[in-house]
């Protein structure tokens, strides 16, 4: 009996050793290309560092510089407004589409594929599409406005309209991420619940309010956190659409960071921007990370 325990223990130890061995390549790459750079960014944020020069210790100067820089503060506020608008609207839109899809249509698979396509498109291609559609002179959208008697709009070169446009295009591209989570979740709700509610005299709003919404709540919460996190860091789409312009009107925090680091070569203060963004992201997503770990890897 004792012998078996020893053998089992030995086998377990061997398993653990093999496990770590198999995990190590992936963990090493993650460490080398994400973790160490992350720590380095934290360090660099306390240095004055322009590309090609030796870093000089600067204490909190980069942070002081940032928080005294109205452009930075405004880019953070602008980013928060962007995140609120896009996450709220994509949730509403995604929920609406998911509930509608649950009604089952002929050629359902085809419609689902069409609805999901925008999320699988490169920011570069999305920008070609929308810079054409929103073009002042030849854009079909201005043409449609003309048909109903409205004047043409400077979609991408008027500050407020440009901000609205990047929100709109971002929502267009990312709503499928909501659909892909909420539509299957809606399908798992048994129809009998709705039938029972119908017999009890509930109208469709009441069954939505008291059946659909509570049962979808966990998925909605997770998706909200996740989408906040992802939309907070968006760079590619806004860069290809407006490059932060006109007149910085669409300069989100990531664009500010890009300019600071990759345009002016101030890698010290760019790292400080990065740290502020990481802190905000971690603050938002810590709950999500924990639940993710529990659901995929067990407690």
């Amino acid at each position: 009996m004792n012998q078996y325990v020893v053998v089992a223990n030995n086998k377990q130890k061997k398993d653990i050793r093999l496990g770590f061995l198999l995990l190590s390549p992936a963990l090493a790459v993650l460490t080398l290309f994400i973790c160490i750079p992350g720590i380095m960014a934290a360090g660099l944020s306390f240095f004055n560092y322009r590309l090609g020069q030796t870093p000089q210790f600067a204490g909190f100067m980069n942070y002081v510089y940032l928080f005294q820089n109205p452009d930075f503060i405004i880019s953070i506020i602008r980013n928060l407004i962007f995140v609120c608008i896009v996450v709220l609207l994509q949730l509403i839109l995604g929920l609406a589409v998911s509930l509608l899809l649950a009604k089952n249509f002929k050629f359902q698979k085809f419609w689902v594929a069409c609805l999901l396509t925008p999320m699988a498109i490169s920011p570069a291609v999305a920008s070609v599409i929308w810079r054409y559609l929103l073009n002042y002179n030849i854009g079909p959208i201005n043409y449609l406005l003309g048909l109903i008697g409205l004047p043409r709009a400077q979609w991408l070169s008027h500050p407020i309209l440009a901000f609205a446009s990047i929100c709109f295009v971002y929502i267009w591209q990312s709503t499928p991420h909501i659909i892909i989570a909420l539509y299957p979740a809606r399908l798992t709700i048994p129809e009998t619940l709705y039938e029972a509610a119908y017999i009890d005299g509930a109208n469709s709003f009441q069954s939505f309010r008291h059946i659909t919404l509570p049962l979808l709540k966990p998925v909605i919460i997770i998706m909200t956190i996740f989408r906040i996190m992802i939309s907070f860091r968006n760079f590619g789409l806004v860069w290809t659409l407006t490059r932060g312009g006109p007149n910085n009107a669409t300069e989100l925090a990531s664009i500010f960071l890009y300019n600071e680091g990759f345009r002016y070569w101030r890698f010290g203060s760019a790292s400080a921007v990065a740290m502020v963004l990481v802190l905000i992201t971690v603050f938002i997503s810590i709950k999500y990370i924990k639940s993710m770990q529990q659901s995929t890897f067990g407690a």
Partner: protein
Amino acid sequence: MKSNKIGILRIFEWTTLLLFVLGAFGPILMIIISSFKQDKDIFSYVPKLFFKPVFDNYEQLFLERPDFFNALLNSVIVTIGASLVIILLCIPAAYAYSRLYSKKFKLTSFYVILVRMFPPIIVMVPLYPIIRNLALNDTYFILIILYATFEISISTMLLKAFLDDIPKELDEQACIDGCNRFTAFIYIILPALAPGIIAAVVYVSVFAWNDFTFAFLVSGTATKTTPILIMEMQGLVEEGYLNWGTVFSASFIQLIPILIFIFLLQQKLVKGFTLGAVKG
């Protein structure tokens, strides 16, 4: 009376659905169609619904923009490269989490998820000077490794989920039949894991194929990928050096694999939603 009401409701549902589909897919369809239009038809202020389809734009792309096909080739290379790296790194890791799991791995699993939260552009700030110093910018290697790195987390979780679905009795049976852990993996698990591997490869491929940020920061003339070239072409179009049609045709060519993937795999995509939720 009642069936009439249902009929009206159904018409309303169909109309809403078609409006949503039009909103989501219409813009894409529009540039696909326009890529077969002559320039005068694209430019006509009144959009033309009926026109004679031509391949002028594709011809022009072939003749005048050989760099587009170079970029396409670069994209293919980094996509395949990143997929291979993901397979090599994530199958062993997923195997460890699924078959050898012990409490001692808990910290590593937290780590795998946590590093995924780091925004790419932030990691690039400290990496960029190093990449430059090592003369790694504008190489396939760095693009491949960056794409793979940012997909390790999702791919490992995905492959683990697929491995968990393969009954452990299968391995044990194989062990009784004289296989060791390694041969059991090769002969029993690997074939059963094929759908999972395909799923992981699809995810990383779509990411590498579409990515703008990384390629924008580290690729140069030698490794320029399709999205970067398309962005440059778009700039030329707006400065008047290139036709809209040419950039539309380039975009459509870039889109073809994506469209195939979406229309073939949407069923699986919807099923794998929990994993889809961790995607950017």
